[in-house]
């Protein structure tokens, strides 16, 4: 919640700052800036590059601020580390009261340094001073009565902390900690946790980076990082190609022959809405958890998409183009090769882009279920060991690769079908 509010504040603040900053620079008199109606005119809306840059920086800044990263100087308050102390008042069986101090050392176990036990004076009276150690983000039960004179008596109890009265199942706040009394009368001390995330939930950016460097050089679970990612990619490419090699001719056949269309329509229309992930159990039962099963799964994921896009490509041929080719003396085969196939390329490319995206998502999911190597296997395995930094690293890499695939497909589309949309 705090993060969301923080994010909205940054969003609004950045908007006004950029607005004020750009108001000093001379505005360009391009055509769009002369339009008076821009609200609702899609062509007048172009992404504000400053906003994009700030957006990315903001995500990293918030990430860093909430994880206590060393990358930025400003952080949200972290967990309390150091010594905290409070006093308590105990009442013994004869109704007398006495005060004693408790000193607690709160330390960060990640730092690897465990502080020495404090040496303290026991103090006077029947209630004696105590010390304890608590790890950050944890809470500790402090049995303050244990060393007190007569502390094991049934009627001996703690009645106040720092002068504030406390009874079982109530809590009070002292400096840097929350103290809760359990039903049996023991104090449970929770040092201030601050707003930062625990590394096990969200590690800092540099931890993720150093994990990337480490896994990049040492590998993970018997395979290098590049083998993990490469195997995922190979599965996607092989599965996608298999789907395209079968799907495109099938789509053409469905677009050109009534018998093919009638025969395969029910199959394609039925299989298309079935998410490939739902096929994983069946594929594992039939083909096992090896490469064969995964490639067949990806094949099925891309097959229907490629079939439908090829069919749509054939149906999209303007009849006048076909007629023109016939009256120019072309044979069926020539029309197929020179008119139908090139005309369907834009549709097939759209299908291929969608299909690659689906395949990439499916391969990661399939590897989550069972794999020896692969990006998905890497992150599911890391999550079992609570290596959140590796999980986040894996997710980022999966996203980057997915994005790169899409960009590659778009570039090759622009190169191979320049007439698309014209």
């Amino acid at each position: 919640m705090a993060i969301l509010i923080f994010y909205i504040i940054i969003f609004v603040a950045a908007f006004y700052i950029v607005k004020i900053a750009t108001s000093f620079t001379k505005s360009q008199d391009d055509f769009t800036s002369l339009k008076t109606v821009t609200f609702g005119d899609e062509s007048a809306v172009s992404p504000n590059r400053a906003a994009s840059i700030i957006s990315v920086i903001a995500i990293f800044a918030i990430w860093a601020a909430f994880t206590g990263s060393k990358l930025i100087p400003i952080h949200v308050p972290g967990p309390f580390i150091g010594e905290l102390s409070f006093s308590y008042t105990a009442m013994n069986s004869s109704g007398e009261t006495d005060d004693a101090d408790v000193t607690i050392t709160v330390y960060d176990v990640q730092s690897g340094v465990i502080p020495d036990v404090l040496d303290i004076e026991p103090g006077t009276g029947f209630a004696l001073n105590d010390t304890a150690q608590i790890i950050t983000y944890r809470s500790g039960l402090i049995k303050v009565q244990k060393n007190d004179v007569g502390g094991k008596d049934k009627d001996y109890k703690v009645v106040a902390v720092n002068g504030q009265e406390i009874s079982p199942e109530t809590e009070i706040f002292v400096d840097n900690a929350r103290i809760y009394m359990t039903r049996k009368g023991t104090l449970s001390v929770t040092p201030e946790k601050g707003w930062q995330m625990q590394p096990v939930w969200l590690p800092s950016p540099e931890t993720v980076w150093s994990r990337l460097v480490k896994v990049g050089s040492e590998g993970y679970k018997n395979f290098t990082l590049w083998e993990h990612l490469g195997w995922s990619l190979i599965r996607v490419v092989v599965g996608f190609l298999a789907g395209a090699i079968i799907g495109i001719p099938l789509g053409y056949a469905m677009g050109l022959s009534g018998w093919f269309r009638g025969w395969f329509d029910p199959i394609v229309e039925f299989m298309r809405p079935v998410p490939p992930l739902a096929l994983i159990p069946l594929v594992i039962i039939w083909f096992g958890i090896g490469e064969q099963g995964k490639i067949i799964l990806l094949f099925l994921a891309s097959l229907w998409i490629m079939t439908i896009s090829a069919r749509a490509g054939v149906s999209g041929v303007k009849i006048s183009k076909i007629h023109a080719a016939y009256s120019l003396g072309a044979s069926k085969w020539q029309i197929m090769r020179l008119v139908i196939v090139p005309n369907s390329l834009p549709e097939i490319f759209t299908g291929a882009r969608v299909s690659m995206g689906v395949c990439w998502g499916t391969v990661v999911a399939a590897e989550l279920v069972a794999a020896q190597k692969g990006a998905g296997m890497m992150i599911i395995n890391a999550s079992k060991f609570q290596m959140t930094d590796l999980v986040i690293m894996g997710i980022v890499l999966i996203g980057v690769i997915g994005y790169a695939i899409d960009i590659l497909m778009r570039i090759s589309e622009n190169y191979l079908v320049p007439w698309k949309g014209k």
Partner: protein
Amino acid sequence: MKGLSINNISMRFDLKNGSSVQALKDVSLDIDEGQIITVLGPSGCGKTTLLNIVAGFLAPTEGKVVLNDEVVQGPGAERGMVFQQGALFEWMNVRSNVAFGPRMKGMPKSEQEEKVKHLLEIVGLADFEDKAVYELSGGMQQRVALARCLANDPDVILMDEPLGALDALTREKMQGLVLKLWKETGKTIILITHSVEEAVLLGERLLVLAPRPGRIHKEYKLPFAEMGVNMDLREVKKSDGYTETRDEILSIIWEMEEEIMGRAEEN
């Protein structure tokens, strides 16, 4: 016998709701080699059906089309077609589009090249060989379509509203080009149009079709196409008889359209 002859063509087809449509009824027409004929009629009179039958894309239910003593059975290279926009192949440049027909015949590359150059010069698109067709304006695209059709050296050129999508100025220029090509190549041309003016200007013979069933209502023999070969089309429009003919045909078409509207209201 040289020339194109359309013998007693009838065309009827069943609709899904059980009724049937008589698109054409008993249409007969003899066209000598080298004639240019324009076909005019209200929408739904079967102009395009007639052209598709001549092109061989549709089989008539009765009658036959004979070209140079051969009965038309299907589409063929001796009957070239020019469509309204959008029939060029976007994935090919101008050269490959124009060379498409010769390439289908297996003409050697160098000859194709020569032919393309020559034809593009005739249609006024010299040096545009390497342009992509989607880079050209609508008028230029239709010039390419004309060149592509001529490259195949067909006996008959069938034009299905080839200038319909062009703006008025471009259209006028293209009408001049059609007449020039007709004279230079001596091809038989059948041109379908919606524009009465275009039909009167370009047709040596002008056929007015009547709807339901599609049939030839009236035929005119006109001098304007011959005049337009050597004269500016705007001058032709000022010549004797042009305005009268145009208005007469316009009123015929109007009458037919009114009748169609009336029938639609009755239903």
